[in-house]
């Protein structure tokens, strides 16, 4: 048994190291200078250039302003997604109404449409709305998604007993009341997962913001950082430092909510 545990943890640890190694290397590069990146044998120890690199990033991009913008986008997108998706998922999971199955099949089918393909007309739509350059162009299109509704519907179906919904209705709760008092409290772990997923995706989104954000005061972090990646004479340590600085809030958010997610998932398992 002891040996089995050791082997198990050995394998898990190797996988963990492989996952963390590029992250560690980013740290190494952010504390060294660009020419150190291309040394052979490669350098694996921390250097002393971190302050210089951070200063270079702050000189070249409006880092904190962009981070503020990204925060606005990521928080509002996540809040809207959690609200709209859970409401729709709960409706799909626990109520019957005409057209329900058709609507759900349509929902599943929407996941098959590759979004990048519509970039050009989507930009024209934004221009027609007058949203080009505004953060609205990032938040509104992302405010509800099929993936989240699908994910939460599974959860609601398994974790909420129909009797509970009935009881709440008999107690005089309206539709919104049942949603608030029955659905939301029991869905916390699933919401935590969806929240993290949405927040990360929104934070790291690059393709669409790059197209639609034109106002230099309204850039998100990833777009602002992309200007560090000039076509010539790229200072890679600075790019890596910028990438690292942009990751810090994500790691914080993830660490906080991962706990919630772990706890919730276990609770859900016991109850289910």
């Amino acid at each position, binding site marked *: 048994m002891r040996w089995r545990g050791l082997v198990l*943890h050995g394998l*898990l640890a190797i*996988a*963990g190291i*492989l*996952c963390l190694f*590029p992250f560690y290397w*980013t740290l190494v590069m952010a504390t060294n200078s660009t020419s150190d990146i291309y040394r*052979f044998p*490669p350098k694996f120890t921390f250097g002393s250039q971190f302050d210089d690199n951070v200063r270079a990033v702050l000189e070249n991009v409006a880092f904190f302003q962009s981070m503020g913008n990204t925060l606005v986008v990521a928080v509002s997108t996540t809040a809207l997604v959690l609200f*709209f998706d859970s409401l*729709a998922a*709960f*409706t*799909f999971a*626990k*109520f*019957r*109404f005409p057209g329900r*199955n058709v*609507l759900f099949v349509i*929902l599943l089918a929407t*996941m*098959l*449409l*590759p*979004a*990048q*393909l*519509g970039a*050009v*007309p989507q930009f024209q*739509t934004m221009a027609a709305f007058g949203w080009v350059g505004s953060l609205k162009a990032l938040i*509104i*299109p992302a405010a*509800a998604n099929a993936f989240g509704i699908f994910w939460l519907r599974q959860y609601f*179906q*398994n974790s909420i007993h*129909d009797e509970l919904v*009935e009881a709440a*209705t*008999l107690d005089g709760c309206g*539709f919104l009341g049942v949603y608030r008092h029955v659905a939301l409290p029991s869905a916390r772990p699933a919401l935590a997962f969806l929240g993290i997923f949405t927040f*990360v995706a929104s*934070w*790291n989104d*690059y393709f669409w913001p790059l197209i639609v954000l034109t106002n230099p005061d309204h850039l998100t972090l990833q777009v602002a*950082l992309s200007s560090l990646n000039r076509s010539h004479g790229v200072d*890679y340590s600075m790019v*890596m430092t910028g*990438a690292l600085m*942009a990751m810090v809030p994500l*790691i914080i958010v*993830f660490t906080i909510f*991962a706990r919630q997610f*772990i706890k919730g*998932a*276990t609770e859900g*398992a016991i109850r*289910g």
Partner: protein
Amino acid sequence: MTLTAAAPPKQAPRTANAGRRRSIWSYWRFYLALSPFYLIFLVFGLYPVASTILLAFQKWDGLGPRTMVGFQNFGFLIEDSTFWLALWNTIVLFFMSTMPTLAIAMALAVMLHSAVRLKGVYRIAYFIPNITSLVAAAIFFAAVFSTNFGLINAALRGLGLPTEDWLGEPWGIKIAISTMIVWQWTGYNTIIYLAGLQAIPTEQYEAAKMDGAGPLRTFFSITLPQLRPVVLFTVIMSTIGGLQTFTEPQVMVGNNGGTGQSGMTVVMYFYNQAFFNNDYGYAGAIALSIFVLVLLFTAINWKLLGGRGRS
């Protein structure tokens, strides 16, 4: 878990499904609750993709007038060897990245499920690749696979094995790209599988143990069948993502896909035709083909894994 949409709920609450026939308007709350998604999808999803596909029947350079050309773009597409190559690359890359990702993720999830300590630490470690910036990851992997100064070749040299010109060889390029995708998505799938594993009632395992089933038999006779809906979910999500691979090859081997265009995927080809050659009509035809491809693969997955998936 139920994945088939057509399956009616076993016991829908009577309150919401009263016996008498109700007017459609009495359901307004439900439609209102669903409306945000469908509205957003119509305006920002369906319309843009539909008009891209409409372009498939037109000729447009992105700025000048549009002219209808019927099926001409599809004629070009059939003759275009680069398109078929891109299609082949996409499918090969999809298998090379999705299969290891899901297999490793499943193995890790099962191990993690049986490990008692440090679960939280591992979980965070495994999720880190998913939140690492793609730019940083791309620079890292390009360095790992580089010919003279790369880590992999350094290791091969250390073991006395012949080195490889990874990013200059058609297969090397595919291996490098899929490695990066596996790295980025394994942890994410591990966590999903783990959540699925934790939902399996422990009594089932105890019963199997009483029957004297070994770990392997338990895995195949209890764990896997119970996880079927979760597996289907990850397979479908990986299919949709994998067939749309774009960023990883683009940042690793450039817009043209490297030697023998071995890293050129269909979405990259779409992107090149639209934004570099300004041949939006042709790009629209490629877009349509991507849609058909995704549809086809999803249908295959559904058939293979769906079937008995209803709980």
